[in-house]
């Protein structure tokens, strides 16, 4: 039931969201919830793949963890800006890290919202819908 595939029965005009998190279980759970809410998902597990997959898949929104291998969340935010095709994609940061030390920094780096894990599902979905 819980697979990472997102291709099955994709109707047209569903927004595509890229989930960047190094924890496979969290990626899967979030992906499942997003698909249940009529979004398509692409999952990646590190900072490098986030940029590579972003260029390939052109997601409408990115949910980004901060603690990542191969380029942390801040590096991803910085790199996204350097690719004109990716620079306009809204990024929601979802991290276990402390908002006090990180919220301002991520928003300054270009993220549109900051959520600390565990986040309230409805609040997160609300923020996603507001961006699309």
């Amino acid at each position: 039931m819980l697979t990472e595939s997102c291709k099955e029965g994709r109707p047209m005009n569903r927004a595509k969201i890229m989930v960047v998190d190094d924890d496979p279980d969290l990626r899967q759970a979030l992906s499942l919830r997003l698909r249940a809410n009529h979004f398509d998902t692409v999952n990646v597990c590190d900072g490098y793949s986030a940029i590579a997959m972003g260029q390939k898949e052109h997601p409408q929104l990115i949910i980004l963890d901060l603690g990542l291998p191969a380029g942390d969340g801040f590096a991803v935010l910085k790199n996204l800006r350097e690719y004109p095709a990716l620079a306009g994609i809204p990024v929601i940061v979802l991290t276990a890290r402390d908002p006090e030390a990180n919220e301002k920094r991520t928003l300054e780096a270009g993220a549109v919202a900051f959520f600390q894990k565990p986040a309230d599902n409805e609040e997160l979905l609300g923020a996603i819908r507001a961006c699309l």
Partner: protein
Amino acid sequence: MEDEAAHVLLIEDNPGDADLVRLRLVESKSAVHVNCVPRLSDALACLDVETPALVLLDLNLPDSRGAETFRRIRQKAPNVPVVILSGQDDQALAMKAVQQGVQDYLVKGDVTSKQLERALRYAVERQGLLRSLEINRKQQLEFKNQFLSHVSHELRTPLTCIQQYVTLLLDGLAGPMAPDQTDHLKTVLKSVNQLHAMIRDLLEATRADSGKLHIEPRCIAIGELIEQAVAMMRPAAAEKRVGLEVGVDQTIPLVYADPDRALEVLINLIDNGIKFTPAEGSVVVKAAMVETDPAAVYLSVSDTGRGIPQEALPLVFERLYQDPNAVDGNRAGLGLGLFIAKEIVTLHGGRMWVASQQGSGSTFSFTLPIYSLAKLLVPVIVDKGRLRKAMVLVRVELTALPKSLRGSWRETCARCLELLRRCVYVDKDLVLPPMATSALVETFFVVASTDMERVNIMMDRIRGQVGALPQLKASGTLRVAAEPIPAPPAADPRTLEQQIWGVADCVTEIIQQGLWSGHNFSEKENQEHAH
């Protein structure tokens, strides 16, 4: 002392005594360089420029006497060892100074060069030891805080995983659930939430310990905040069949406090009240003024629970205190809630205390400072004992675009406020504490003690700097306007204090009534959009 000539600062107003000490130092053949000053003010100036290896100090100087002299030196150079030079008659004072951190004392006229050399050498060594102990203690504390902070963050990831999958199951995203299964999962989720609260408390207490707990005071209507807290706690009270009532005096003035933090304190106290009150009991939240203390609002949360034993009363605000008689079902937290609440209140300059009668309930009370515009205004509107001649109120209004996100909009407003503070002169202009207003419109006010000409320049600067903030451009609009504050008549018979109150009232009226006639600005100038 070290081989290199050590620098000794000798603070002594009696030239005879000073020469004697110099002589003894020369006799001792220690390689020292002595700099002698007669007054505390000279000494403080010296300490600004260089750090001596040691201070030799006479406590009674022309410009300072007794323990105060040492306190001032200590404040200026906390890490420099101090040896007191005392007279025969003030050894008691010198001894007292030793208890307060002076390394040693020598009685003037009674000192041999050997004693002096030994005293200086030991003082330096002891101070070094003290300093390394202090550094060590700080490192340990820092390590403990980092450890706790790290652990709390690492706990969040598995906790998030549990929360995610439990809610997936509960929401039926993995197939239908039997009612029993749903109930069990709800119990799991409740525990997840408790664990989450504990992690949050742990981090908060760590922050409080390391002085990193921050508050952002605003001007708030405390009655509304109480209503909000009570509304949030009503389901919990209803579930336990505990009554939850509010008694707020309608004449309560505005309070100067961080609304999120104050809400946290109220919720903590109400939650405790409900937890320790049996079914059919009640919890009452009150806010009132007390005649003897007009600068504070008194808030209290009373319950009809079983109360706190007399011997436990002094302990309830201690870290990790837990009620030893907590019955099952009242699963205790970490015992940090009241500690954090008290820290928050203290940060606001308030007090928190508890009164309790075993068997009939407890009342937790705390104070928050009232918002006194007059007090805030004094430093900028008074110059050389008189009111400044021209004063203008500037309004900076930020309006969120409909699509902006709540969290990031607040952050954007905070950034704008930061920028706004950089657009004004610290000694002449005052950015008023932000009002807790609607979620979509944030209004900041600046009281500028100056004429319209300079205000125009200031407004241009605000439009340029705040208006250029990318986050604001993306999510909202900016509007800047100004209104002169009527100056008191030239021959004002009122006292200065009354005049200040008058200005404060006037500012309040303009803000509350929205008296923005804009007669100094055309509509075009008034409306400045960030786009």
